[in-house]
């Protein structure tokens, strides 16, 4: 944590809203990315962003500076996002999933099998596969694949060992690959 950030946090602890706005400006996109990565719904992700920053304003005085500030914040985001899913009994919008859990290409996709559409279909499949993962595996994957955190940083954020992080990433990836196994485009490239 650099001195500028420490100063900002110290001012926030005294209730300085300008300093808090600085923190918001620095982290808003990161918080949104993690929230969106978990819930995959714009409105829900924005709700989480608000909830997290209001919680942060209230609880920042409890931040002792023993860990990195971003790991403290990321943990708060992930916990809030997972709580949000549990609270709202988040339903995966799986109109495109058939009874066997297989993916049905939309009519438009069948008519236009171009590259962009293939990418979009793959992304949609991965989204569905991610939603089927346990929260810990999903969180580890978002921290690694979206935020590019190292194993050590993920371990600090999730308050677990590096070995556990590696295990969560490994099984998360494996489960997504299994889910996509029937989708030839992933295996064979484009």
């Amino acid at each position, binding site marked *: 944590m650099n001195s500028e950030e420490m100063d900002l946090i110290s001012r926030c602890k005294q209730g300085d809203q300008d300093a*808090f706005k600085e923190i918001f400006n620095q982290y808003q996109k990161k918080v949104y990315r993690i929230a969106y990565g978990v819930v995959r719904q714009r409105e829900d992700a924005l709700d989480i962003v608000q909830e997290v920053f209001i919680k942060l304003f209230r609880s920042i005085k409890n931040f002792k500076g023993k860990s990195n500030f971003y790991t403290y914040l990321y943990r708060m985001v992930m916990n809030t996002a997972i709580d949000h899913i549990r609270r709202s009994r988040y339903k995966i919008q799986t109109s495109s999933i058939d009874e066997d859990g297989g993916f049905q290409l939309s009519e438009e996709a069948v008519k236009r099998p171009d590259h962009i559409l293939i990418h979009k279909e793959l992304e949609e499949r991965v989204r569905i596969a991610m939603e089927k993962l346990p929260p810990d595996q999903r969180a580890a994957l978002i921290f690694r694949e979206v935020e590019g955190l190292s194993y050590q940083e993920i371990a600090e954020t999730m308050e677990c060992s590096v070995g556990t992080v*590696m295990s969560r990433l490994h099984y998360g990836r494996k489960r997504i690959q299994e889910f996509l196994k029937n989708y030839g485009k992933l295996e064979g490239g484009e």
Partner: protein
Amino acid sequence: MKDSCSSVSKLLEKYFDHEVTEKERSLVEDHILDCETCQDGLSLMGRLREAIKNPIREAEEEESFPWVWEKIERGIRLQEKPNYWESFRSWVSISPLFKKKVWVPAMAAIAILILVTAPLLFKKTTSYSSPSVVEYVESQTYNVMVYESEKGKVTVIWLFEGPEKESPPS
């Protein structure tokens, strides 16, 4: 799959995540040069990463946040207004009297007092409505007066001696 695949495949994920040592990195890179299976494994993880990351990045680019800050500011202001219970608690916490333990026996005494007096205070007092005379009978020896309350639940029969006759003034 080459013979060394099994040993290298354990490192493949770490290599993909840039978490290998220099020695491990050169080992993996030497191996994948002519191992299609491991190349495919890496390529698969790469495509997965893109498929996870891209929609999130796209959603982020479409978003503008100024109004989000306004809502957060409003939320913070709302939380800054303490409710009555919090006001009471903060008053209790700043009051020097309540910082001392003297209030514990005082509160206990008040509670006992309330418990003792409450039944007396809330006891239903029977109010008799003003009785009315129903009958009055005079005789030489006794007079009889019958009272009855308005509701007719209480009847009083009063038997008393008749007034002594006044002696004529001498």
